């Protein structure tokens, strides 16, 4: 059983691509081998900045011989038929057998395909792998046509067994395979001949190359934490940076350097970001003060002066970088303290989106909306508006221009330095949140108001210009924004009627002259479908709308207002879809959510979820589960009867026509349940309402057990159907139970 070793040696592979490339190499080669009949015991792939390596152990020495038997024509068949059979099998007349069968003498061909030696298969598979490698971006070099991530220099490809090691012959556009590689670019550049994977990795290590990225990362982290610890400090963890740095070196050497005293007063996030983004340094913190005081850099070599020159160089570069950062910080603070409106004005010249205007336009909309939402989330309207107006001011600051990832955080520092209210400053940082399903949701009311306004503005804006997410494409992160709204509303327990907010915002957006095309498309659709929901545009809404958009052309106003409810409906469904995904993760079934979405008030997400949770709990009980069966039975019988009779049984069940005890008991039970459910539902107190509903289970079951609905006495029959109608009406007042599955 030979072992295979492959190394593709190139110029420096981008760090972010290495680990994926190693996996791809393993997958493509091993799949190719197995497809060709070469199975193996185990395989592993590795990457360094200059090489991708694959080791495959316990490979078959050749693919197995295959034997195929084909039945042909009878031995006395016409010559033409026999010739055709021979051609198909690729054999001559004397290579086939004649066998006696119950139907007489028949020709048989036995086609044996001899196995193919491993080397031949490997060469073919490896060449195809190289030519079709899925690099995120690849290039040509020199005069060649071959593509690789950076110029490919050599291919090591050997098969090793007890007898020794052989090169697998291979030539890809002039690069021929061999049994040699090179060590570290600077520390051990000589050629190395290898005979097996063990030999290869041992010799590489002697030639200052650690093959395994995980081993390099461990070594870096170990040395970094030890070095910091020795000075009473700790390294700030950053798994992404660690992986990247491990992809930049073959021979990691950890060095700890100093940050100039001038810079230690910069905000720690600024130090950390500048060092990470520009220099790929780890930050080193003083655990007593929380301040960042040193840095760790990872060099790619040992030197005679133990890294002194390298460290001095890195300190110097950092100092130049931090001088810039300090310059930005001080300039920004000066602006923040004197007049931040310079920044907000500058945003008038920054386009947010061609059709949705400038950042300043957007801020105006968010400020108005934050003010409107403030009372709902318990924030002071003036403060919410102020916070919204300042929350994005830092986009004009020099620091955020340099480090976009510090947006919001810098705003908080600058707004605080301007002596504004802490809640206003906090909103600058928090209004972008939550950024994902696991990100913290702000709880401060002012932050919640601005965060909601920000996301609702984004959603209604892109909905107005018909830029909705499709499939895997969501370039404006609208799913994330919708989930953000959902989490903000739910976690603050806010009862926000989304629909009126969406309609107003969408009408504003659609009235914007820049979205003419979309507006017209909506109008056309509405005219065609004639389901405009125009009734929704009540007079008071019309008046309110004129107030917020006084300059709008009358025709455009009318069209925008007509189109808005339709767009809002569509956007609300999008919220509901996101909500289903969110609640599914919390163990609430989609049909339960559907049953609740079908109810009035479904744009109040807090209410919707409260209802869904209560229903979910009820359905988890035996009574709840059986009640559903009872309800469905009642509903089915009733629906069939209504269809057959062409009438609706909805009124007038009278206990005086009841004939059985069970029937009378059901009347009593319905009266009792109704007395509990109606006030509970009015108070949106779903749990007691649903418990009361569940108590109907026993009387309904008993009723069906004892009573035949269809009797000859039409009065009794009608009365019973009307009784079923009471069950239906009462249950449907809680949730649309027809949507429940099972």
């Amino acid at each position, binding site marked *: 059983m030979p072992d295979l070793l492959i190394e593709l040696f190139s110029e420096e592979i981008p760090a972010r691509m290495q680990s994926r490339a190693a996996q791809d190499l393993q997958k493509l080669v091993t799949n190719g081998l197995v497809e060709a009949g070469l199975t193996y015991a185990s395989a592993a792939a590795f990457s360094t900045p200059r090489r991708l390596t694959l080791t495959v152990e316990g490979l078959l020495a050749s693919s197995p011989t295959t034997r195929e038997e084909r039945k042909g024509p009878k031995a006395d068949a016409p010559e033409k038929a026999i010739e055709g059979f021979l051609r198909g099998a690729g054999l001559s007349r004397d290579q086939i057998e004649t066998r006696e069968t119950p139907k007489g003498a028949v020709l048989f061909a036995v086609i044996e395909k001899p196995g193919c030696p491993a080397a031949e298969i490997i060469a073919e598979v490896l060449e195809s792998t190289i030519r079709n490698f899925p690099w995120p971006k690849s290039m040509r070099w020199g005069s060649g046509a071959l593509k690789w991530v950076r110029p490919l220099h050599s291919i090591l490809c050997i098969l090793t067994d007890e007898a020794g090691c052989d090169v697998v012959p291979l030539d890809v556009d002039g690069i021929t395979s061999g049994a040699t590689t090179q060590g570290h670019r600077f520390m051990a550049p000589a050629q190395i001949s290898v005979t097996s994977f063990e030999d290869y990795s041992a010799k590489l290590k002697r030639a200052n190359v650690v093959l395994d990225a995980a081993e390099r990362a461990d070594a870096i982290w170990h040395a970094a934490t030890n070095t910091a610890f020795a000075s009473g400090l700790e390294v700030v963890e950053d798994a992404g940076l660690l992986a990247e740095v491990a992809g930049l070196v073959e021979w990691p050497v950890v060095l700890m350097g100093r940050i100039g005293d001038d810079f230690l007063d910069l905000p720690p996030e600024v130090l950390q970001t500048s060092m990470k983004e520009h220099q790929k340094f780890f930050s080193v913190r003083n655990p007593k003060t929380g301040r960042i005081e040193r840095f760790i850099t990872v060099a*790619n070599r040992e030197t005679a002066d133990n890294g002194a020159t390298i460290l001095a160089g890195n300190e110097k570069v950092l100092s130049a970088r931090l001088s810039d950062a300090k310059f930005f910080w001080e300039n920004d603070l000066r602006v923040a303290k004197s007049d931040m409106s310079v920044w907000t004005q500058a945003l008038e010249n920054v386009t947010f989106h061609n059709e949705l205007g400038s950042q300043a336009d957007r801020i105006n909309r968010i400020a108005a909306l934050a003010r409107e939402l403030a009372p709902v989330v318990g924030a002071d309207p003036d403060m919410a508006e102020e916070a919204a107006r300042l929350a994005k001011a830092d986009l004009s600051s020099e620091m955020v221009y340099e480090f976009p990832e510090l947006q919001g955080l810098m705003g908080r520092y600058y707004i605080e330095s301007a002596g504004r209210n802490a809640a206003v400053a906090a909103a600058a940082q928090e209004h972008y949140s939550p950024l994902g399903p696991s990100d913290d949701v702000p709880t401060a009311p002012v932050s919640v108001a601005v965060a909601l306004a920000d996301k609702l503005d984004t959603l209604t804006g892109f909905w107005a210009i018909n830029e909705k997410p499709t499939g895997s494409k969501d370039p404006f992160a609208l799913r994330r924004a919708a989930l953000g709204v959902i989490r903000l509303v739910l976690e603050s327990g806010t009862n926000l009627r989304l629909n009126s907010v969406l309609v107003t915002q969408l009408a504003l957006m659609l009235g914007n002259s820049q979205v003419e095309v979309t507006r017209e498309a909506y109008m056309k659709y509405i005219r065609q479908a004639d389901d405009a929901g125009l009734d929704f545009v009540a007079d008071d809404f019309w008046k309110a709308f004129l107030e917020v958009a006084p300059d709008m052309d009358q025709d455009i106003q009318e069209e925008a207002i007509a189109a808005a409810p339709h767009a809002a409906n569509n956007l609300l469904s999008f919220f509901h879809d996101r909500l289903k995904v969110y609640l599914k993760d919390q163990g609430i079934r989609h049909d339960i959510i559907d049953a609740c979405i079908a109810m009035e008030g479904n744009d109040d997400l807090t209410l919707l979820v409260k209802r869904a949770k209560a229903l979910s709990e009820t359905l988890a009980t035996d009574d709840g589960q059986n009640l559903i069966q009872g309800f469905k039975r009642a509903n089915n019988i009733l629906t069939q009867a209504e269809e057959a009779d062409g009438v609706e049984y909805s009124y007038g069940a009278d206990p005086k026509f009841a004939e059985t005890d069970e029937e009378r008991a059901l009347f009593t039970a319905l009266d009792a349940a109704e007395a509990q459910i109606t006030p509970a539902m009015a108070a949106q107190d779903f749990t007691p309402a649903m418990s009361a509903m569940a108590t109907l289970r026993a009387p309904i079951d008993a009723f069906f057990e004892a009573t035949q609905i269809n009797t000859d006495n039409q009065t009794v029959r009608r009365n019973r159907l009307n009784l079923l109608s009471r069950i239906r009406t009462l249950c449907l007042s809680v949730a649309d139970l027809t949507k429940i599955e099972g």
Partner: protein
Amino acid sequence: MSNLPETPRSFQDIILRLQSYWASKGCAILQPYDMEVGAGTFHPATTLRSLGTQAWAAAYVQPSRRPTDGRYGENPNRLQHYYQYQVLIKPSPPDLQELYLGSLEAIGVDMALHDIRFVEDDWESPTLGAWGLGWEVWCDGMEVSQFTYFQQVGGHDCHPVSGELTYGLERLAMYILGVDHVMDMPFNNPQTPIPLTYGDIFKQTEEEYARWNFDVANTDVLLDQFKEAEAECEKILAQEHVDPKTGKRIIMAHPAYDQCIKASHMFNLLDARGVISVTERQAYIGRVRALAKQCADAFVQTRAGGWQPEDAA
């Protein structure tokens, strides 16, 4: 270490060493292009010569202007006028990385003491319609060069591929010479009777240009010049290939490209004056790119661009 040349002492010493190093590796040592450009890449010896099939090897210093980077000579690292050293070899030789590292040794970087790294950096020039893959080269954490394999220029795929090296001369020299402020850097040998620093030569001009670039340049004139250059470029390229006077086939790719360079510089000046909005910016870049593409289209129809008389047949 002993066989390394003596450490350079001045800015010009570093330039001279690069010149003689690349001359020794077979490059034609060209002179700077006589027009205002934003980077060495704009020199026709790079932009145009990276197109077509003809082999090419050239190196040169290119004074470069980035009006927005002006800091009145006060910032230790930023200048509106600075020098780039540019090497372009087509087809890119297989040992280009080693050749490059050799050039660092030639200017006094001791490979045994420093940490040299090739860090991913994809290069793209929206104004030239060009892109390539390569790295920024780091020396002890400092970016000292850009290293690019050109894949496309002026909308044309590069066959063969050129290898381009760009050294930011001031930054690299400051590092080698151990200088913290660019204006303090010795320009000539500090031991000579008349030693001159970078500041002696450029402090005043940095101030003058910063003021002009940011506050005085007449934007109406600049805008007119942009439009004129654009129109002239298109007019040049619209001419018949055969010159009616001489009867020769003369495609004026270079004069047209000069106008493209001019338009690009006018755009940079307008940008520095802050009169170009974010949305307009893209449109201007697109207009310069359109010119660059037309110039590239024209150049590949010239002899230097690989056109052969039999192609016409």
